[in-house]
């Protein structure tokens, strides 16, 4: 009965018996969710790989339409955001002030938003102007064969889905900032921070795979 737990820590849910049980359940739940996500992106990676082998030259030409410098900048931005996320968790764990935790979280938020801004302003917007978006602003001519169009499809599906995950991540960070400000976390209870951190790192890792797959491999280098 509920009465047997004299003092509930904040955020403790009725269906659990102990705080540890709740924390473990949350962690396991997030790991399983991430497994699901791997399969979700995995379906796309599989399709990408199959078509890349079918249309190698066109995929290489498509890849040349992307701007490596912005992709690389964004990679750096995301890796930094993972660091600041980890520092936010660390400072909650070691009992640093709420201000410290919130600062790291906000910095993470800003880096995530910077990623999206760069993607939108310098990449997608340019693609739109130059007619590289299949189904939206596709200027089919210019020697672009169907394989190139397919490459661009995959580019937009994959980066678009990744961006959606980033937007969800920004929402989660916002909630975490509010929760921290309301004194919900302590060195004894910061599971939501940790679990959200797992998600944030996962979204970064997806990008770590997307960046070489879309921007780097195939014929970028002198002599190839």
């Amino acid at each position: 009965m509920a009465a047997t737990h004299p003092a509930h820590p904040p955020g403790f849910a009725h269906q659990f018996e102990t705080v540890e049980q709740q924390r473990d359940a949350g962690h396991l739940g997030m790991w399983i969710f991430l497994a699901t996500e791997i399969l979700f992106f995995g379906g796309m990676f599989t399709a990408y790989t199959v078509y890349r082998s079918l249309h190698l030259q066109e995929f290489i030409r498509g890849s040349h339409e992307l701007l490596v410098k912005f992709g690389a900048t964004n990679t750096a931005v995301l890796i930094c955001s993972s660091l600041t996320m980890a520092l936010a968790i660390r400072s909650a764990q070691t009992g640093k002030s709420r201000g410290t935790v919130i600062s790291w979280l906000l910095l993470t938020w800003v880096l995530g938003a910077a990623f999206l801004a760069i993607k939108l302003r310098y990449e997608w917007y340019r693609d739109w102007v130059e007619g590289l978006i299949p189904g939206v602003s596709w200027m089919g001519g210019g020697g672009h064969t169907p394989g190139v169009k397919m490459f661009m499809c995959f580019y937009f599906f994959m980066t678009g889905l990744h961006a959606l995950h980033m937007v969800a991540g920004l929402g989660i960070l916002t909630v975490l900032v509010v929760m921290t400000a309301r004194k919900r976390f302590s060195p004894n209870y910061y599971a939501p921070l940790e679990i959200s951190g797992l998600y944030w790192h996962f979204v970064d890792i997806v990008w770590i795979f997307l960046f070489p797959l879309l921007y780097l491999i195939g014929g970028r280098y002198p002599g190839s």
Partner: protein
Amino acid sequence: MSTEAPAEPAVNYLNASYGIKSWLLTLDHKRIGLLYLATITLMFVVGGLAATLMRLHLVEPQGALFEPETYNKMFSSHGIIMVFFFLIPSIPATLGNFCIPLMIGARDVAFPRLNLMSWYLFVTGCAFVLYDTISGGVDTGWTFYPPYSSLYAQSHVVAAALGIFIAGFSSILTGLNFIVTIHKMRAPGMTWFRLPLFIWALYATSLIFVLGTPVIAVTVFLLGLERLLHVGIFDPAVGGDPLLFQHMFWFYSHPAVYIMILPGMGVISELITAFSRKKIFGYSFVAFSSLSIAVISFIVWGHHMFVTGQALYAGLVFSVLSFLVAIPSAVKVFNWTATLYRGSISYEAPMLYALGFIGLFTIGGLTGLFLASLATDVHLNGTYFIVAHFHYIMVGGAVMAYLGGIHFWWPKICGRLYPDMWARISAAIIFIGFNLTFFPQFMLGYLGMPRRYAVYAPEFQVLNVLSSAGASILGIGYVIPLVYLIWSMRYGPIAGPNPWKAKGLEWTIPSPPPTENFEEIPIVTEDAYNYPAIEPHAYPDSQGVASV
């Protein structure tokens, strides 16, 4: 455990609060289970009506009712609704939601809010598909193969695809919730090898939910984008490969077959033990056979593509792998029958369904071996033999188990008993009607009648009329339980906590259970199915053998 709980508690999960809002915003796993029950019953009725119309149409060789285009939409709606919106959620989302916390000794699932969200996602998916059906339906079959569904589609593919996409997330979240619940919420002493086998089966099912469903989600997503934006992912005209769609589709949809049958197998393990009053024969074999079925299910998808241009060697490998599934399936059937041996068997309605399941599943499973063989599959592919085979698994297997489970746990769900005689009669009617419907289809398929055709050669008429006659009997068999179960909710006699004298934590608490399930979290000290041993010769006065 010897103290009897009161026959009907004053406050239980059903009467703890009233009003629509208390149901639509409930976080109680038992109520959410009932929300699913109502939703999938509605979907079953819609899908069943489509089937009824199809069987009526096929009474005459030239088709009695529809234009061929309409017939295509009928079987597509039937397939989509029955597979994605009835069979896949049937046992896990209703009985699983209701029973898992009760059976493992927990107050709720690990994430009750997520659980409610799953239901809302599911309802949203249902809404899209019903809208789709009303606004004209799809004519692609439930498999959505491009280019039927892309280049040449004349129907509302996108709404149906979106419905499946959304309902898929409901499956994923339910699976996630179940896995975490089974890992982390078990009562003290409820070790993995004391878990009821229903829990093992749902655990294996949840693995498929979590690992398979995202792939169909992304596949359907790509298909929808291809359709909306006219970009060719699966369109050969722009370099796409329709076979890739089939690979990705079956990577999920073959494991999905086991999403439908594995929970049913779990229910049967509960029913067979409860009504033969014996410990299951070979507990760990049955438990691990569930897991191995889940694992093998992911590597056999190519047997759906033997005649679609897949490489011959890939076909050989998929054929061999498909035969492997027969091993854990047979382990289960043999262990159930071995459990029956020298059991103290009684034939209440749930047991009739369980025995029906064993027979029908065996036929369905063995005919699956015909189809896993490359050479016979070339002959039988695309005929009614396939239709009969998977209906023996999905209706003869999964639906029988679902109904058996509903009849078994109904007294727990609403605290009242249904009329046993009517239940037995309807179980018999369903068994007879089912066989009359689908056995002729094996013969039709073997004789060469193709599936999905709105017209057929006149020499097939006798068997088709038999099948349609069987379908009407089957329909009656499904209506009777609907009537008496609803009747019993109000007028049935009070069931008491354990009307079957069955083992298991869910039978130690009042019926209907209180919102909290357990007044105090139980401590488990015995194995599952620890029924008193029956040794009539050695111990004439064996009633004294105590249950712990």
